[in-house]
């Protein structure tokens, strides 16, 4: 049943191709391709559309996204303008690619951030039983990275924990946006060391933590600037906008003439 289909060099298909089996494209296809087998796009092959297959080998030109459930291979001479995603992506020297390349299955990437919240809340309730509102868990979860490092060197436990507590009051406004991006990067490293470190430190700090909110009134002004600093480094830098738009030079010249 899994017969290999061929789009010959002198053939143009304008429409969608889907189904089972493998496909060899030596001609032109304008439309999306989705097959269960492998797809090979020959040196003279041209595809304008998204291609989805198990194994995808490209030696020709593709304008569209490539997705391989097993692999995507760009052979020398291949030209691809579009996103590439597959567990394995090979781009040979001489191949040309323009677009986003992801060498990981997308479902796995999505599953990872979802798993983090589960890891996080566990240690928190132990450390601070009474004080946490529901929003809380994310805030301290992000923090521990700088904390454990700073603690041993600078013995100011009263000042440090105060920041998280104070942050506790306004966070509902500030947090909803950053938590997701903040949470993802530290996840792999953070969880293992934290539970022990935290619970130990927490117990020691606990008495100091309690008075913190009361004393924090005057101190809050000093620490306030700390908060905005934290989300900043994790955000991607703002996009660089070209000062001169395309064509403005030409227009200027024209106007001078």
């Amino acid at each position, binding site marked *: 049943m899994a*017969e290999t289909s*061929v789009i*010959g060099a002198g*053939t*143009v298909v304008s429409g*969608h*191709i889907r*189904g089972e089996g493998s496909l060899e494209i030596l*001609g032109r296809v304008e439309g999306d391709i989705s097959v269960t087998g492998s797809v090979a796009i020959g040196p003279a092959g041209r595809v304008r559309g998204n291609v989805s297959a198990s194994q995808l080998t490209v030696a020709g030109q593709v304008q569209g996204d490539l997705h391989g459930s097993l692999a995507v291979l760009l052979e020398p001479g291949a030209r691809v303008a579009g996103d590439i995603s597959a567990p394995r992506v090979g781009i040979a020297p001489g191949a040309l690619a323009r677009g986003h390349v992801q060498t990981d299955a997308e479902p796995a990437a999505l599953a990872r951030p979802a798993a983090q919240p589960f890891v996080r809340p566990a240690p928190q309730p132990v450390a601070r039983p009474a004080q946490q509102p529901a929003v809380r868990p994310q805030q301290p979860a992000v923090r521990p990275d700088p904390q454990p490092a700073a603690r041993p060197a600078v013995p100011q436990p009263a000042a440090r924990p105060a920041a998280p507590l104070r942050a506790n009051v306004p966070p509902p406004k500030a947090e909803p946006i950053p938590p997701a991006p903040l949470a993802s990067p530290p996840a792999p490293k953070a969880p293992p060391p934290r539970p022990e470190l935290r619970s130990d430190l927490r117990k020691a700090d606990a008495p100091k933590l309690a008075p913190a909110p009361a004393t924090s009134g005057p101190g809050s002004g000093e620490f306030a600037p700390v908060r905005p600093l934290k989300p900043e480094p994790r955000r991607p830098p703002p996009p660089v906008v070209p000062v001169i738009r395309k064509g403005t030079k030409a227009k200027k010249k024209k106007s001078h003439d």
Partner: protein
Amino acid sequence: MAGTVIGAGLTIEGDISGEEEIVINGILRGRLTTTDAVTVGGSAVVGADITGASLSVAGQVTGDVTATERVDIQAGGKLVGDIKAARFTIADGASFKGNVDMEV
């Protein structure tokens, strides 16, 4: 070997045009235009107007056919549509419904 082969299990929704032989064993909906021979295999289901040098039908075709040379409907083949071709044969056991124009 034929220039273009649409295997069984493959579905194309759209137009196919070319200058070489085309063999269809899968499903095609749209239009098919070539300057060479067209073969519709036994497992094929074609809902398309077909233009070519010659056409051989062993599967199912629904659509008008224009051939510069000939049209042959094999035993077991089924064609519903108008045919315009210089030569036209229907094998015993084939089914056909439509008008025939052999004045090319």
